[in-house]
């Protein structure tokens, strides 16, 4: 068969195949409504009731606990209330598509106040381990996180401290995230000045997982809490 013949045969086959499947129903590619994600942190010393409106289930968070992320449609505000020790505060929050919001409940003049920490992830990488640092202590300016000195020195040598820094200059209400190697890690938080938190052992970080370390105030002292970023099913 010459080239023209081959082309005609190919065209006929294509037309026949396409005609056979002309009734393929169009389906959406991608989400019909993009998602956003929200979680809560109880930085109070009393239990916190999370009372969402709509389909989400109410829950109670013990002190220093980070909740799982809930998936919510990004085109509707999240509404509900937060309640602790007889004080209740209404919540209405707009989330951008793809945004991860951590709502931290911290002590305040009227019982408590809310610190809204927003993250729009630049990338996802299942080949690495991702760690976020959130400064949720309103009095901790220029907060940060560094690897604990494995030799247990007082960390007074400036160069040594700088070498171990993972996050720095993170002010209250802000989040920084970076990828780290999946290793055993023990960390200490710090603020502007000499004060450091007690060490926190993150144990073995797993490849492909995302984690968050928060610095918050407990009994007036900066303290670290830690959780794997987990999603409600």
């Amino acid at each position, binding site marked *: 068969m010459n080239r023209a013949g081959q082309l005609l045969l*190919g065209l006929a*086959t*294509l037309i026949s*195949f*396409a005609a*056979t*499947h002309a009734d*393929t*129903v*169009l*389906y*959406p*590619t*991608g*989400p019909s409504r*993009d*998602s*956003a*994600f929200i979680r809560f942190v109880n930085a109070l010393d009393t239990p916190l009731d999370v009372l969402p409106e709509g389909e989400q289930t109410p829950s109670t968070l013990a002190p220093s606990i980070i909740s799982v992320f809930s*998936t919510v449609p990004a085109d509707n505000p999240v509404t509900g209330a937060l309640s602790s020790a007889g004080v209740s505060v209404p919540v209405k929050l707009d989330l951008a*598509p*793809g*945004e*991860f919001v951590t709502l931290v409940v911290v002590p305040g003049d009227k019982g408590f106040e809310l610190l809204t920490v927003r993250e729009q*992830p630049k*990338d*996802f*990488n*299942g*080949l690495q381990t991702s760690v976020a640092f959130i400064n949720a202590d309103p009095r901790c300016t220029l907060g940060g996180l560094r690897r604990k000195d494995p030799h247990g020195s007082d960390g007074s040598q400036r160069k040594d401290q700088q070498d171990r820094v993972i996050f720095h200059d993170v002010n209250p209400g802000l989040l920084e995230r970076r990828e780290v190697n999946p290793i055993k890690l023990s960390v200490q938080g710090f603020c502007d000045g000499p004060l450091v938190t007690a060490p926190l052992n993150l144990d073995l970080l797993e*490849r*492909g997982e995302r984690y968050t370390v928060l610095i918050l105030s407990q009994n007036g002292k900066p303290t670290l809490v830690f959780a794997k970023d987990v*999603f409600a*099913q």
Partner: protein
Amino acid sequence: MATSSVLAGLTILIIGDSHLATPDFLLNPLHEALSRQGAQVHSLGICGANAGDWLKATPSPCGGAERRGTAEATVLVGASTRPIGDLLDSDKPDFTLIVMGDTMASYDKPSFPKAWIWKQTDSLVKAIAAHHTPCVWVGPNWGSEGGMYGKTYDRVKTMSDFLAKNVAPCSYIDSLQFSSKGQWATIDGQHLTRTGYQTWSEDIVKALLQAPALKAVEK
């Protein structure tokens, strides 16, 4: 039957989207190519399915097809996905092959919903990993630009690159490596001609034989 193949005697579960949801798209060529290697294959294609739809039974907007072993493929009436945990429990496959990507790429929208896609893919690969089943993920091919789904080469590259970084511990097969842009003719921008599906199937099997996940099964 080429019983000397490393696939000989293995049980393979294949799940996927519209490319597998019609018998003479990818379903039959891939099913038969793997069967010829001596594998026992169960293929299930659900049109329009996203990765997260395989966590629980989710009805399809556009049909599906299934084929088990040497039986003929059947077109499913009232097609829906089946929970991946149930499929793994009943099939007990040596490994799972996932063919998915186009349904999540948002070709017709300006922004790439990476957080949503990450959640979709992450939840599926974690569910498979929880069953300690090795897996291989086959990403989308170039197709052709435009058509009824508005596919673009830029977006399919973004989608494929995203999957390559986010389907571990599954191995990733990058279908973009199999052809040049537009080389494989399509009937609608996204779905290939019979010849294209035959070629894609052959390339998938060749790549599969080199996949790290398969090496793990051999051990």
